[in-house]
């Protein structure tokens, strides 16, 4: 289907089903039960899942295929957000031109930055991209927000004000980002018994966009172009010796992933019309690296899983506080309970980053292939066990090679 082989089609269908049914899947617990805090099916979080999924898919096209580790990808996300908010300010709250512009502008910036950075490889490339991103952050944070030429609105963040032109804004359209009148915030809540499920217009826009870009990513992975990028990763020198210039390929990959980041930034602004410089900081770039690694570098589904995993646990872990912990361990004797809570305290709530750092280190050390590799190992282990049982009685002989 759509030029994909059977395996990829089923992967695409699975992802499509998961994203479309996410409001059900992520809300497994009744709304007013004690477990409701583990529900992730509210619009804001679901939007973040897919937006960061898009960001990570794009990053993976660069890092997973070519092996070039960019430490400055958040710059394109920020640029995308700024362009989208400028479209809201100048034209109207319609999200289509905003997202289109954010992709174009992020593409242009990534062309420029990529052209310069890709002259070097390895650690130099990482540091060049880091330098560019920090420069963009510094510029957005202070320089481009002077009264004469206010492009980014500095520390406050860029937002839409009442006296902005908005030349296509008409009466009757919502005063928030919308898709031809359908507000991104409009949510339909379906109550089924004790459960309640939110269907949010913004989420579904993001989900549809994610399915499209996921499909594109599959096509890129399977195309001759994608194979060329893998060749860059496995041995760039040998590729050059065969007479191929690898730079146009890496630059194309860089621009594509920059446009993905811009798209994610534009969607982020479309969900909440605000753009701040902190989105461009290098910790934000580190986060997308983390998502990709955690999910599985160079795999199709990995980055999406990684993004979902990190955003979900960020949300859940930072909600857990001492009283919740006390509630969980109430069955233990008093002294034990206090001890367990004291041990767990640094890892939850505000200490979520500590857990994240430890998790990240563990993944890099023991599971370089990320969650996908972990899943495969698990499947192999289970299969190995089962086939081991069936193999013995059959006693089939394998032909020697």
């Amino acid at each position, binding site marked *: 289907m759509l030029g994909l082989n059977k395996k990829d089609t089923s992967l695409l269908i699975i992802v499509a089903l998961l994203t479309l049914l996410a409001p059900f899947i992520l809300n497994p617990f009744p709304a007013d039960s004690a477990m409701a805090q583990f529900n992730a099916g509210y619009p804001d979080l679901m939007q973040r899942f897919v937006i960061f999924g898009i960001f990570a898919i794009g990053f993976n096209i660069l890092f997973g295929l070519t*092996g070039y*580790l960019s430490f400055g990808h958040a710059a394109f996300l920020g640029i995308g957000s700024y362009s989208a908010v400028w479209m809201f300010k100048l034209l109207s709250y319609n999200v289509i031109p905003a997202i289109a512009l954010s992709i174009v502008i992020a593409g242009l910036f990534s062309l420029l930055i990529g052209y*310069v950075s890709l*002259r*070097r*490889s*390895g*650690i*130099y490339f*990482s*540091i*060049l991209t*880091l*330098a*560019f991103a*920090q*420069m963009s952050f*510094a*510029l957005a*944070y*202070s*320089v*481009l927000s*002077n009264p004469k030429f206010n492009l980014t609105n500095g520390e406050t963040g860029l937002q839409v004000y009442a006296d902005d032109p908005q030349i296509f804004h008409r009466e009757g359209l919502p005063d928030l980002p919308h898709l031809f009148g359908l507000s991104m915030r409009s949510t339909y809540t379906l109550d089924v018994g004790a459960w309640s499920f939110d269907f949010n217009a913004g989420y579904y826009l993001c989900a549809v966009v994610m399915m499209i870009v996921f499909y594109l990513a599959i096509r890129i992975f399977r195309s001759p172009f994608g194979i060329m990028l893998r060749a860059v990763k496995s041995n*760039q*020198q040998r590729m050059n010796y065969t007479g191929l210039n690898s730079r146009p390929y890496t630059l194309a990959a860089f621009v594509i992933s920059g446009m993905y980041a811009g798209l994610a930034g534009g969607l982020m602004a479309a969900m909440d019309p605000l753009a701040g410089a902190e989105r461009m900081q*290098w*910790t934000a770039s*580190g986060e997308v*690296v983390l998502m990709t*690694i955690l999910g599985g570098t160079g795999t199709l589904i990995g980055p999406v899983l990684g993004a979902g995993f990190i955003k979900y646990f960020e949300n859940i872990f930072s909600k857990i506080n001492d009283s919740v912990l006390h509630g969980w361990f109430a069955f233990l004797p008093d002294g034990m309970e206090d001890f367990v809570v004291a041990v767990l305290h*640094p890892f939850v709530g505000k*200490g979520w*980053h*500590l857990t*994240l*750092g*430890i998790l*990240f*280190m563990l993944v*890099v*050390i023991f599971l*370089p292939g990320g969650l996908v590799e972990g899943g495969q190992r698990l499947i192999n282990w289970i299969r190995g066990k089962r086939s081991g049982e069936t193999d013995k009685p059959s006693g089939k002989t394998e032909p020697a090679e």
Partner: protein
Amino acid sequence: MDAILLQILNGLDKGSAYALIALGLTLIFGTLGVVNFAHGALFMIGAFCAVTLQKIFSLSYEVIDETQTDFLGNPLKVKTPYVESWFGPELGAVIIDWSVPLAILFAIPIMLGVGYAMERGLIKHFYKRPHADQILVTFGLAIVLQEIVKYFFGANPIQTPPPAALSGSVDLGVALGFDPNAIIYPIWRLVYFLFAVVIIGGVFSFLQFTTFGMVVRAGMADRETVGLLGINIDRRFTIMFGIAAAVAGLAGVMYGPLNPPNYHMGMDFLVLSFVVVVVGGMGSLPGAVLAGFLLGILESFASTTWATTTIPGINQIIIYLVAIIVLLTRPRGLMGRKGVMEE
């Protein structure tokens, strides 16, 4: 003339910090071939050694002093630090006052230990892995160390004042023959610069004039051959890692009075230090030191009102700009050698 000199002097303290951190990074890279993203965290841990020692020294007990009363006539509670009660009030007060310089002695064993543990416990397993993995695992470690410090010391900067005798400013202009008040310079910055020079000189002479240093240099040039000669080069490289960690830590200890330490100071310095290392030339120790001071001074020149009014925001981006230009025109950096980090 004096204005130029003033800017150069102003750049020295940051330049010293860049140079010290970049020196450690290059040392680790040159010996072990590892890109250490946790080096900024080591700098931060050093600064928090000073904070810890200051806290230990000012641990005190309360006694009710009958001779002093507040305005209601109740006896006052007087806090006496243990240090003062042990060493007598005068010496005790001096010890508390000099807690930052004393923290050097406290920090050296701690940083050597931390460095040793880091190398043996974690980095050892990453020699054979790609550079990307090394970057990622040390990046993760940096997050962990940072969060641990944040957990114990909180997110706010903690003041670590310099000793009273070194806290004022001096009029350097008079000493150098300029008008009075032309160059007024905080003493601690001068101390920091001299300290950095001593440390850098110490590291270089250690490498240059001791047998241990000679073996390490030989190992940097050709690790395998040195190993074949029956020398346990891994062990020496581990010690060098500890020394690099100690250099970063000491840079952090003495940096406290210039800028109150907080948990993310390491990350802020790390990004710049990497840029410094790259500008200086990956794997070149003199290059790292030179580029550190050069970029520090350049940053100070870019922060003058003249520069910021001509090109707004130049002080924020100058280092990155220089790095980009250097990398594109001299890809190996200012003093980089051939064959280092070139796939």
